[in-house]
């Protein structure tokens, strides 16, 4: 059976000089060493699977998520989503994929209803059907009727993140990329989002890729896990198979990478500097 996501020798580097790099090249000045974000990544995610990618800040998780989500072009290698190349067939891939990032990205002065109506329109959902589904999904998320019409900046981060998951669901994606969806949330909000993700996995025929540095979250939600460090996949297996006897998943992570998972800084993540 064709895998949901197939990644073959994916390489992504960043020029630290940015646009200045082109000038340096033109003027024959020495170039700064490129930052290797993804170093020959190979992996396959099967249909219907919840596949976790765990790593610390700067390990390459978010870069990988962005390449699969068509938000970054790879330098070499290939990424296929349901047989479609993310570079050549980006628009086709976008049609059946959605991503929830560490920061709930909305027009914060607009209400959940207004933000989700916008999403419904750009994804071509009929207005009547969209309106009904928006209310269904938001009510299932325990978002009060009044809050649905209030600006999102009056909601807690946890609620905003739940609306972000709802937005992704509204488009009925067959591939859902969750890029640290619970980072920076308080324990209660975190559990609510995790419960919702679990419910989505149980009730929707979707493949999920979850990027996280939260080992408990990874163990609870994922069928298989890959450990990524310095842009390389070190190992992939079922969570239980990654642990030695008596080890927690975090212990296994430290054993495999040689360092602990760093505490994530939400501000840094908001600036796009996540793993």
């Amino acid at each position, binding site marked *: 059976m064709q895998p949901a996501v197939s990644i073959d020798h994916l390489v992504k580097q960043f020029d630290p000089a*940015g646009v200045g790099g082109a000038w340096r090249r033109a003027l024959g000045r020495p170039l700064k060493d490129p930052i290797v974000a993804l170093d020959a990544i190979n992996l396959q995610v099967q249909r219907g699977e919840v596949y976790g990618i765990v790593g610390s800040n700067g390990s390459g998780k978010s870069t990988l998520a*962005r390449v699969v989500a068509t938000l970054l072009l790879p330098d070499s290698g290939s990424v296929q989503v349901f047989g479609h190349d993310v570079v050549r067939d980006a628009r086709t891939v976008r049609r059946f994929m959605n991503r929830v990032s560490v920061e709930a990205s909305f027009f914060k002065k607009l209400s959940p209803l207004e933000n989700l109506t916008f999403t419904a329109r750009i994804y071509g959902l009929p207005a009547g059907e969209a309106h009904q589904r928006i209310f269904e999904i938001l009510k299932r998320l325990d978002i009060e009727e009044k809050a649905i019409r209030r600006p999102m900046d009056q909601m807690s981060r946890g609620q905003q993140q739940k609306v972000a998951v709802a937005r992704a669901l509204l488009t009925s994606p067959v591939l859902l990329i969750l890029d640290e969806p619970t980072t920076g949330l308080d324990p209660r909000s975190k559990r609510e989002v995790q419960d919702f993700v679990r419910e989505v996995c149980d009730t929707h025929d979707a493949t999920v890729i979850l990027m996280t540095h939260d080992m408990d979250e990874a163990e609870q939600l994922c069928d298989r896990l890959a450990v990524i460090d310095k842009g390389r996949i070190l190992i992939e297996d079922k969570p239980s198979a990654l642990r030695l006897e008596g080890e927690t998943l975090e212990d296994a992570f430290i054993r495999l990478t040689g360092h602990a998972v760093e505490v994530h800084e939400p501000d840094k993540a908001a600036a796009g500097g996540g793993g």
Partner: protein
Amino acid sequence: MVALGRELGASYAFVERNFRAVRRYWGWEVVFLFYSIVNALTVAYIAPGGVLVAGQQFDADRLILFLVVGTVVWAYLNSVFDSVAFMVSWERWEGTIESTFMAPIRRVTFIAGSSAFAVLYSFARAVVILVVVALFFSLDLGAANWVGAFAVLAIGSLGLLGIGIMSAALPLLFLERGSQMTVVVQASLLLVSGVYYPVEVLPDWLEWFSVISPATYVLNAMRAAVLDGVTLIDLLPHFGPLMLITAVTMPVGVWVFGWAERYALRHGRLKRSG
């Protein structure tokens, strides 16, 4: 046909969302509108003030109308340019740029939606400014050719949109400085287009730039329509340069935007910069 309908629906999504955002930021909208009206009144007062300063008589009413048309048209063109040129910056500032660029729509749909919003929003503002200023100075606009004026705005907007789209690409290339460069483009258009004076007063080397600014032709045509009531047929010669500029800037703008987007996707410059 279905695909076209879907893209049009998606374009409308940007118009609707942006108007909703304007409504939510209504306090700022009132402040900006108040500022624009006061600015237009202040500029118009240069005419009667000029009579006192120069110490000689000239047709101050015509000069008021000349300045009012310049101010209102510039308020419109500036707003169109602003809304289009900052479409990427706005998405980035709100934090939605990645989800917008990940949507399964053509990029031209995003541009068209943002441009349609820019034109509608700016037109509404310009009408309010014109009405208030006209009432304030009891301007006689009875001789104006409003159909012609509307046609000038419609055609003139297209040429400016092309330049706006090119400017919108700048923040995709330069995360921090892109928006600043956009303001430089905007200010340059203000200087060379004859907003408050005929371009003939500019030094030759600067006047040359007025030839490539669509705002120059919009202002000339608009003054002909509003001050002199020139008929639509007689306005046609003004449309030629505007259409030529549109024919060049629009496709170039869309191409530049696409190129800049590919650059941003290759170098990771799409994401929010804070």
